[in-house]
């Protein structure tokens, strides 16, 4: 789901970058006012976790590959704002260091993975906060993120809509299920080992 540079047209790039930069600006300001120093190392560990799981990709049927996102899991633990900053910083780092996703198309990648994953994912989770709903939210936001990725590529005339949609949804259906299972299992493990981590302020 990491769109490289040169794949999106100007209007899609401008729109997604504007939305993502606005979110980044607002969330950064809000979090810098609310954050406690003890929370920073925890966010660092969460960033390292997200960075790592997004780099490890798996081949799926159809000759493509997919990776986990971790957006909902991080948002459930630390809050959507913190989750969004963590996801964004991981995406920026991946883009600058390894060209894993383009630098100019960062806005689109932050939108698909960060905004949809963290904010929409957290909204779905808040309907009835539980491990099951966190898992369902992980699954849904993976699919929705992939759907937006298809729309952006289609608007930019990079893919055929039907072919791209079927390919992306099928591959992300598999990773959505794995993502949901991972969210559920990690939350279950935290509940048993460090239940205090589930009661952190959701900033």
């Amino acid at each position, binding site marked *: *789901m990491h*769109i*490289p*540079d*040169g*794949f999106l047209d100007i209007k899609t790039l401008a729109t997604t970058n504007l939305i993502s930069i606005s979110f980044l600006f607002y969330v950064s300001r809000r979090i810098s006012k609310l*954050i406690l*120093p003890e929370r*920073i*190392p925890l*966010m*660092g560990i969460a*960033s*390292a976790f997200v*960075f*790592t799981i997004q*780099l*490890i*990709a*798996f*081949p799926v049927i*159809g*000759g*493509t*590959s997919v*990776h986990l996102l971790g957006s909902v899991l991080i948002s459930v633990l630390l809050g959507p704002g913190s989750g969004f900053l963590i996801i964004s*910083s*991981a995406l920026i*780092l*991946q883009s600058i*260091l*390894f060209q*894993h996703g*383009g630098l100019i198309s960062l806005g689109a990648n932050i939108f698909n993975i960060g905004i949809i994953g963290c904010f929409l994912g957290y909204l779905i989770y808040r309907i009835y906060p539980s491990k099951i709903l966190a898992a369902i939210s992980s699954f849904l936001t993976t699919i929705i993120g*992939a759907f937006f*990725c*298809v729309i952006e*590529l289609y608007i930019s005339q*990079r*893919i*055929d809509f039907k*072919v*791209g949609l079927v*390919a*992306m949804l099928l*591959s992300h259906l598999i990773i959505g299920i794995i993502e949901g299972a991972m969210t559920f299992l990690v939350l279950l493990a935290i509940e048993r080992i460090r239940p205090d981590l589930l009661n952190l302020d959701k900033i």
Partner: protein
Amino acid sequence: MRRLIFIIILIFVAERCFSHGVGYSLIKNGVGIKVFYEDIEKTPMSYSEVKIFSPQDKTSEFQTGVTDKNGCFVFLPDTKGKWRIVVNDGMGHGLVKEIEIQDNFKVSDQQIVNFSLWQKILIGISIIFGVTGILFYLTTRRIGVKDAHS
């Protein structure tokens, strides 16, 4: 007379045949690219669309085609400079890479640098921990200064 006409027709047909002949020569040079997904198995990006742009014309393709079963594509640059390669699998994955072609129409070895997955993870985690460490230090120091003043 019949024999003469037959010989004339034969010569005419043979001449036509030669004029449509196709010659060939083997090319030993060329620049190749192997494209793969950066997953744990390095799955080849098979049959993906490839567009090559020359240094002179960055809008019209110099060459188009698809990668083979193993994700490989070879082209023959005719001038030195920065060549742009665009690969699109039509499923949301792709690559845009600029390569420098030298005077001998070959790519310099220095451009072929690939980190392994574990090297990438180690580099990323080191930077993240370094940055958060600095942020943590600065935040606690700021609070410490505030406490000392109050």
